[in-house]
């Protein structure tokens, strides 16, 4: 038996929702991009037509208390590149536009269980990844589902006009509007009762 607890944030109130986490370093790692077309100009790569951005970091290496961005899909994705200290090109910022889907992994620190890996599936009209800030900002009818690894039904759903995900400390900030307040829905599993 499960029950649903719904919390509705009022008007312009900002809801901060954090699940366990401790500050830690974050790294995007290597990445691939694919799409109908890819344009390169002035250290900017623009992918259009079923655009896909995939991090190719080793699987299962999410540090406890952090999140890892695994993939983004959208109508188009623009990646601004910069040269790192080693002189290699690396992503500085990635902007996804149109029918955005974001996939991430979070390593929650659960009392008595240690680090628990969970899936994060997010949709929005647009999303911006900032490497320096280690954040993913979703805007426009943003919805985030948190699932136990391999599960189909989410254990939590967050929705709002804007959601800011902090990858380095596993936190999410949900913002709504007066006419459409933010929502956070948490589903308690049977074993939690």
């Amino acid at each position, binding site marked *: 038996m499960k029950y649903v607890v719904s919390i509705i944030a009022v008007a312009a109130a900002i809801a901060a929702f954090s699940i366990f986490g401790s500050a830690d370093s974050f790294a995007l790692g*290597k*990445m*691939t*991009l*694919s*799409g*109908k*077309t*890819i*344009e*390169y*100009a*002035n250290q900017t*790569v623009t*992918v259009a037509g079923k655009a896909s951005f995939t991090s*190719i970091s080793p699987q299962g290496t999410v540090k406890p208390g952090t999140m890892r961005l695994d993939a983004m899909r959208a109508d188009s994705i623009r990646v601004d*590149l910069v040269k790192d200290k080693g*002189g*290699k*090109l*690396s*992503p500085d910022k990635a902007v996804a536009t149109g029918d955005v889907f974001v996939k991430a992994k979070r390593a929650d620190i659960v009392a008595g269980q240690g680090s628990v890996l969970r899936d994060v599936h997010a949709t929005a009209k647009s999303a911006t990844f900032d490497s320096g800030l280690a954040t993913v900002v979703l805007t426009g009818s943003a919805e985030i589902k948190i699932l136990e690894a391999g599960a189909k039904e989410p254990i939590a759903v967050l929705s709002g006009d804007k959601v800011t995900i902090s990858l380095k400390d596993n936190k999410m900030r949900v913002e709504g509007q007066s006419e459409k307040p933010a929502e956070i829905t948490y589903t308690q599993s049977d074993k939690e009762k």
Partner: protein
Amino acid sequence: MASSSKVNIGLIRAVLTCAVVALLIVGCKHPVKPKVTPQPAKEKAQSPNIEGSFSKAKIIWDDGRGHKLWEAEFASADAAHADGTSKVSLKDVKATLYKNGKAASKLVAPTATADSRTKEVHASGGVSVTGNGATARCDELVWQSANNHIKGTGHVKMARENLKIHANSFTADTSLKNAKFTEAKASLE
């Protein structure tokens, strides 16, 4: 009376003879122009059709104002000049492509055909072009110097430092500063 008539006739004959001789020697004041029959158009002189073979030579195109467009070295070439156009088929080509009179990229190909009228180069057999820190490889490539335009097709691979792009085809400017790929995948390693 009869003797004076004979003398007069003789004198007239002498004068006439002298006049004819003078004409033959001196010629007329207004020489007669020879009659010229205009030639039909098809018989007018045209630039000659030339065919030739070359080896270990160099071809240079310019824009007529002293700015280079293309400079190519090759192992061998067959050239044909007809109707005011030169087409040359090259083997083992190493060429420099110019933009605004400055060297923009380098092209290497096993075979290439260059058309001096259209200022186009068609390269094939596995082409590579390098410029602006990037190298693109493809099966075939067409460069249009007038449009500053490159198009490559077939098994396209471009590498720019640690950014690698694979695609079915691509277009770019002569210097490879900007490029667009179709059915592409990029990886940042």
